């Protein structure tokens, strides 16, 4: 069953007191594909994200991550930083969370913390300036440089991340997540606040991550132009439930999806969905 699945979410539930944010949600994400999670505001998308990335502990259900080498990890049992460290799941945030007082390069170096920690002999080797660590650090800088090139920020490598324009910060955050060399990249509204040109560049970046590096991507997005253009598979949520699933074309024509987005006035909804494609 898990042969062509990297992520398998099975009957995932999340309750906050009496409020059911996510109810028995099941979906799967295929490896080397882009899976989008969409739905109206308050549908529970970010809650699902927080469950997958360890910021919330699910009230019920299972989340299984299958690595290339066949390792299967139960994400619901890991918490906090271990999801990123042991399961290689990286994420970005809806409201950008860079380290504003550190340079772009430093941001990408922090992302390689665990690898560098090992190389520095948990600080002791690094403190005495052992060559092992120096080589590792050089390699880390190379990886960071490569990513700065990819997101087109190489000339600003030594500028503080807090000084970057909004679109640049978004791209830098994705680069930072990629520097952890994740198996699954989770993006929470990566196109929020971007203009049309920046959105197009983002789509291109995400496609290159999928095609050139073979990293699986799970994203939440409101910008339909991005979702429809790049997703291989779309899961639609409303009020904590999955209401539809399928390819962009299937989802766009689904009357339940249209109803969820814009009440019952289907004509208007169709207009919106069409305009996004």
């Amino acid at each position, binding site marked *: 069953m898990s042969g062509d699945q990297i992520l398998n979410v099975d009957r995932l539930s999340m309750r906050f007191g009496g409020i059911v944010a996510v109810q028995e949600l099941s979906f799967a994400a295929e490896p080397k594909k882009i899976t989008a999670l969409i739905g109206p505001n308050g549908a529970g998308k970010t809650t699902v994200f927080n469950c997958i*990335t*360890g*910021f919330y502990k699910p009230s019920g259900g299972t989340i299984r991550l299958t690595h290339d080498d066949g390792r299967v990890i139960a994400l619901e049992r890991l918490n*906090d*930083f*271990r*999801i*990123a*460290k042991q399961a290689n799941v*990286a*994420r*970005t*945030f809806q409201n950008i*969370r*860079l*380290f*504003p*007082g*550190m*340079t772009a*390069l*430093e941001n990408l*170096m*922090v*992302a*390689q*913390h*665990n690898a*560098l*920690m090992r190389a*520095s002999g948990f*600080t002791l080797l*690094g*403190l005495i300036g052992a060559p092992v*660590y120096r080589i590792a*650090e050089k390699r880390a*800088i190379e990886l960071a*440089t490569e990513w*700065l090139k990819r997101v087109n920020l*190489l000339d600003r*490598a*030594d*500028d*503080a991340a*807090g*000084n970057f324009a909004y679109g640049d910060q978004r791209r830098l955050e994705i680069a*930072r*997540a990629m520097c*952890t060399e994740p198996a699954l990249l989770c993006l929470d509204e990566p196109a929020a606040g971007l203009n049309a040109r920046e959105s197009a560049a983002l789509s291109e970046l995400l496609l290159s991550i999928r095609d050139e590096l073979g990293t699986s991507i799970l994203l939440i997005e409101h910008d339909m132009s991005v979702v429809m253009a790049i997703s291989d598979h779309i899961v639609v949520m409303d009020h904590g439930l999955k209401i539809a699933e399928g390819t962009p074309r299937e989802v766009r024509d689904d009357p339940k999806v249209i109803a969820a987005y814009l009440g019952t006035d289907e004509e208007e909804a169709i207009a919106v969905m069409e305009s996004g494609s």
Partner: protein
Amino acid sequence: MTAIPHETTHASRTAGIAYILKKSLISALVALVLFSLMVGVRTEAGSEGQLTYWTRFGEVAALVAVVFGGSIVIELLRQWIGPNGTDSLVPPAVRSGMSFLGRYLAPALLIFTFLVPVIFYDQRYILDLGILVLTYVMLGWGLNVVVGLAGLLDLGYVAFYAVGAYSYALLATNFGWSFWICLPLAGILAAFWGVLLGFPVLRLRGDYLAIVTLAFGEIIRLVIINWQSLTGGPNGVSSIPRPSFFGIPLDNSDNGLAARLGIEYSPTHRIVFLFYVILALALLTNWVTIRLRRLPIGRAWEALREDEVACRALGINTTTTKLTAFATGAMFGGFAGAFFATRQGFISPESFTFQESALVLAIVVLGGMGSQLGVALAALAMIGGFELFRGLENYRMLVFGMAMVLIMIWRPRGLIGHRAPTVFLTKAHAISSDLVKEGHG
């Protein structure tokens, strides 16, 4: 085109006057309310125990006028000297001179510090003051790891200073161990207590963290006072052995250093030796901190200060990161404490009050959080400045407090208001402190 900006500045200046007057009036009103009760009506018990009172409205009026005038002056000072948007009153030439000065300030200071015992060999007071300043430089650098880099507000740093001091004092007086064996032990013990403090406060942030660390400092002090059988309680520990020069005592005996070198004995030898010991310890602290900043652990500390949630999303174990910050800072505090004990020869709980924690924290904040040079300058200004005002006697605290307030108005982010990147691709640009977070626990 040029007239418009001119007009707007003029308008803002007049608006500024209205604002200043309004603010000063409010201050005067508050002063009136306060002083009319405290000064305006004077009450006293009469000869037969009855209450007599009389009014002193003249004095009240004078005080209110002083407050009104004073707040106008302060507001004007703030507008003229203080940071004024992006405008700066400092011309570019002076500024480039300052940056030139900044580049050579640290090496110059270091060379001067090395030469202090040579220049001021006959002036015991200067040497003692130098040792005191260096002790606080070291404490400031140690606390800087916790507060400046990791962004964890620690109000109980003196606890580790006390642990270090008592570790050395007790080990040396009870077992006769030498200073150089006890020094690392004192550091290790302090680091251990740092981790012990770290565990319960891992989940706390900001004010709550500050309160718990403050309480921790007090607990250590109270334990020292009350555990009489071990620590001697309020009487402290006396006749703590002085440090030796690699086993050679620095005294007037036949096998003392002076006798062996065949020079005349002078008590200054020991003072100069202590000066270089604390200088070496402080430089060790500095070197290790600079080194750690460029290692993954140091970057993780700074990242933790910037955004803890993002750290967790990147797979950084925030628990161990915080604990190592506490332990490292505490270890340096322990070293400084051991030095303090050997220098004084006598320690008691009175040396480890909250005031010390506050002083060290003030040094870190005044220096510019995270800046090594800033902390050193701040320690010099705080300890040296405090001595400078000794002639003013009772007004010393007042003048000192006012100087602090002025500096904070002038340079709200500390003396050195920028952060140096730990790694760079082409060129390291200093990062303005406006972008650098202060951390929130």
